[in-house]
């Protein structure tokens, strides 16, 4: 594979850095948009992009924190958290541009999926509802898809993603831990009810005895047995929706 940081056009045509990992060769390969967690485009996040490349995907992972300033990834991510996160519209603009980048690549097989973790899971759910050009979405424990207290809605984040469910444009896979405080099992129930209500195709997989972020190998939340099982589910789901070539 080859993996490198490149510049792509982001929201409002601004150049943003993105980590781009793909197999060697001309393809065709399915595309994956990877959305990093709230801790930034850190070592684990780039490992995820390389994992997709290892599995035969062209994976692009834009650095959504780029506009917060230069510096160490943790320092920049801490600033983004302190800012109350970037506006959803800006993030959606960056993600739409990353999808367009993949769709411009001659190696693409014509299909693009999206996966995100934690806050990236929230963006995944929102992207599946708002953006064109996605054929499958994987929300890994996205927090605040459901917003219990309307006071938590802000000008930057004015809409709870669950309220966009009627516009969901592609099949959704959800991976959740039943001990997670955000999303709680009740939040996941609420999301599932909305998906059913609107007749959207989805699969939810819920794991007992574990909480948030259980794929993250460098964190105490890592649960290797469940993570391996869930990763297999992810690749089975994506294989079903992304590996059959179609014309662009």
């Amino acid at each position, binding site marked *: 594979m080859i993996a490198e940081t490149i510049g792509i056009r982001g929201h409002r045509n601004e150049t943003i850095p993105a980590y781009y990992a793909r197999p060697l060769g001309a393809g065709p390969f399915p595309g994956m948009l990877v959305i990093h967690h709230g801790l930034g485009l850190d070592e684990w996040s780039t490992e995820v992009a390389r994992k997709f490349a290892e599995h035969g995907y062209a994976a692009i992972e834009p650095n959504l924190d780029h506009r917060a300033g230069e510096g160490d990834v943790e*320092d920049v991510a801490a*600033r983004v958290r302190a800012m109350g996160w970037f506006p959803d519209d800006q993030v959606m603009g960056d993600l739409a541009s990353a999808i367009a980048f993949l769709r411009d690549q001659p190696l693409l097989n014509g299909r693009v999926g999206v996966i995100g973790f934690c806050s990236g899971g929230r963006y995944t759910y929102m992207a599946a509802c708002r953006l064109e050009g996605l054929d499958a979405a994987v929300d890994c424990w996205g*927090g605040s898809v459901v917003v219990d207290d309307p006071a938590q809605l802000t000008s930057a984040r004015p809409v709870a993603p669950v309220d966009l469910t009627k516009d969901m444009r592609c099949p959704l896979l959800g991976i959740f831990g039943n001990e997670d405080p955000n999303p709680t099992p009740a939040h996941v129930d609420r999301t599932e009810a909305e998906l059913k209500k609107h007749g959207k195709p989805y699969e939810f997989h819920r794991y007992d005895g574990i909480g948030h972020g259980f794929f993250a190998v460098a964190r105490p939340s890592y649960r290797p047995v469940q993570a391996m099982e869930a990763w297999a589910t992810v690749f089975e789901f994506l294989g079903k929706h992304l590996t059959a070539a179609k014309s662009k």
Partner: protein
Amino acid sequence: MCTNTVESIDIVGSAKGSRGWMPVDRARIAYDHPFNAPLEHAVTIDLVVSTGEPGDRVALELSADSARALGHAITRALTRI
């Protein structure tokens, strides 16, 4: 958990970071995923130069019990003045 909640206050003082002493003017406190501490959630305290670069900060990541104990210890120290 992504709490999306940060308490931010004005402060007066200095903090010593990787580039030496700096005059910090804001403290940002959250209970969320830590970057480094071996905890699922932590009280994160950033003492920052609000007009500075992202790296102009001193960061703490403490367990909830440690943060409470620290707060109480500060209060006790101040009662003696």
